[in-house]
């Protein structure tokens, strides 16, 4: 490798840019450029199949999007799949609290809890698809065995094959009805998501934050006669606020973009589109229907939603956090 010439102190800007060059060139070519390109393309009807002549159509895609029922349904799906988030975060915190005590075998527990998130990906989703199989899967086998033993006549859920859900959302229209109430594909994905996330990065973050809570604060509160819950509520929880804030922001950003692998590997976005999220919708529009212009418009709307949600998080969350 060539050796850069030494420069006098204070004249480091040129050197700095040389060191930044590889990264910034890559960023320009594969991130900044594409972002602008996709914005420009979103104002066109560009279709890779060339069946329609290329045309600039202004806000045409965006107007169409507002009237696209599927878009709204898939947006609701995306939000629905994020319902597991608070459960997973609370679970991570509970596990971290248990792990932060003086116990033997902490590293072993930590490793086992972390296993699902380290192996997450296609292999794990294929595994869960087998676990959820309504006829042969071990989950329903267990449900059936337990319900038989107790003499109950519980019908095990159809999991990935069912459009039922815990909110009773209707299929193909934005409405709620009791007929749809139950456990279905979306709930199955939520349960799997909680299983993956609960012992993962968020738990490690909470664990680190918990060990950094000043012991004096806790002892002072105990001297004042505060009970366990009062100590947690008034001392520990406020001290954890920056961590919680970080986790919530990252979960929103991840959740709004989520669901692609699950849909592609486990459900094909079904049944009846109930597990199609915005990211999977963009994928099908771009790479199965080749409507690059329209797909770009959806991706920009998604970008805008993520941006706004993050701003809202900052506006309301930052108040809670005292640095």
């Amino acid at each position, binding site marked *: *490798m060539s*050796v*850069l010439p*030494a420069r006098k102190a*204070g004249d*480091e*800007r040129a*050197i*700095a840019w040389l*060191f*930044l*060059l*590889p*990264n910034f060139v*890559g*960023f320009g070519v*594969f*991130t*900044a450029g*594409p*972002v602008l*390109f*996709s914005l420009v393309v979103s104002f066109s009807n560009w279709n890779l199949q060339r069946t329609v002549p290329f045309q600039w159509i202004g806000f045409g895609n965006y107007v169409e999007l507002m009237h696209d029922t599927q878009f709204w349904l898939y947006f609701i799906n995306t939000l629905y799949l994020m319902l597991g988030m608070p459960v997973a975060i609370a679970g991570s915190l509970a596990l971290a609290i248990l792990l932060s*005590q*003086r*116990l033997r075998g*902490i590293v072993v*527990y*930590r490793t086992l*809890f*972390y296993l*699902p998130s*380290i*192996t997450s990906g*296609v*292999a794990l989703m*294929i*595994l869960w698809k087998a*676990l959820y199989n309504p006829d*042969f899967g*071990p989950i329903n*086998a267990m449900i059936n065995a337990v319900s038989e033993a107790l003499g109950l006549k519980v019908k095990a859920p159809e999991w990935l094959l069912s459009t039922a859900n815990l909110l009773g959302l209707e299929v193909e229209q934005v409405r709620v009805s009791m007929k749809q109430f139950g456990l279905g594909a979306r709930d199955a994905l939520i349960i799997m998501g909680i299983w993956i996330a609960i*012992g993962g*990065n968020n738990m*490690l973050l909470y664990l680190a934050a918990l*060990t950094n809570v000043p*012991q004096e604060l806790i002892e002072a509160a105990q001297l004042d006669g505060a009970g366990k819950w009062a100590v947690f509520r008034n001392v520990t929880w406020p001290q954890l606020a920056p961590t919680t804030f970080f986790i919530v922001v990252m979960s929103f*950003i991840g959740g*709004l*973009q989520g669901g692609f692998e699950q849909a*592609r590997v486990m459900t094909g976005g079904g049944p009846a589109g109930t597990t199609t999220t915005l*990211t999977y919708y*963009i994928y099908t529009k*771009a790479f199965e229907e080749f409507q*690059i212009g329209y*797909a*770009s418009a959806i991706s920009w709307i998604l*970008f805008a939603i*993520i941006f706004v949600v*993050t701003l809202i998080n900052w506006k309301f969350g930052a108040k809670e956090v005292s640095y």
Partner: protein
Amino acid sequence: MVEEAQGTVFGRAQTAPVGGRGRRSLVKGVLSHLALTLMALTSLAPFVWMVLASFKPLEEVEQINPLPTVWHPENYARVFEQIPFARYYFNSVFIAAWVTFLQCLTSAMAAYAFARLRWKGRDTIFRLYLATLMIPGVVTMIPNYTLMVWLHLLDSYIGLIVPAAFSAFGTFLLRQFMLTIPPSLDEAAKIDGASHWQIFWDIIMPLSRAGLITLAIFTFMGNYGSFFWPLILIKSDHLRTLPIGMLYFDTNYGRQTNLIMAASVMNIIPLVILFVVSQRFLVRGIQLGAVKG
């Protein structure tokens, strides 16, 4: 240095004064272990089922008895007979290794500029660069795909490797590590007439070893399991990575859950080993990444 810090993060929990006393703390300890064990079993159960299923004949996978009546290790060999699994392995490792090497290099160079050099606008540019982490992957995915079409890089190793070789996250992570190195070292080297490249390569890089290892593990694991990009980029079988190969094995080869589970086990094993070996770096890295977010 990082190992010490690691020690304090988890060490303090171990040496903290015991909360309750006598019998009460014993009961509490037992209850905690019970809860933790229950959770650990929940984490583990699907993996146990997967491993057991991978040794069963197909018809037994669908029965409730947990253990195979006869163990069938040849299921693993049959995976290699049906699909070019070794090829997928190689592709995944080859691509992930290249991405890891390039990303560590470009990130370290950028981190050096942000952490060790003094120049106007440095922190503003750093914050702007960090903010780009918010850009969703799907926004850049479509244009990058068309870029690869134009460059005739569809279905190629280069197309899989190069777009992933640059990372704002990596830059951020290594910057955090490099900030902890005392500035007097650079000053002394400068007085001795060392060039910036020499300071970077001979002083800062070795001292950032822990950070580099952390980033390398993150990057390798992330790219080993990478799905979206290879899915849209790869058309021919001999370039498929493990996740893509697994996807088609699952959907196109009929119902043979036992073999698919054997493939999943083989897919996951390198990750588990890598994690167990390197977890102190990984844990530290995850925690450091969020501290100054």
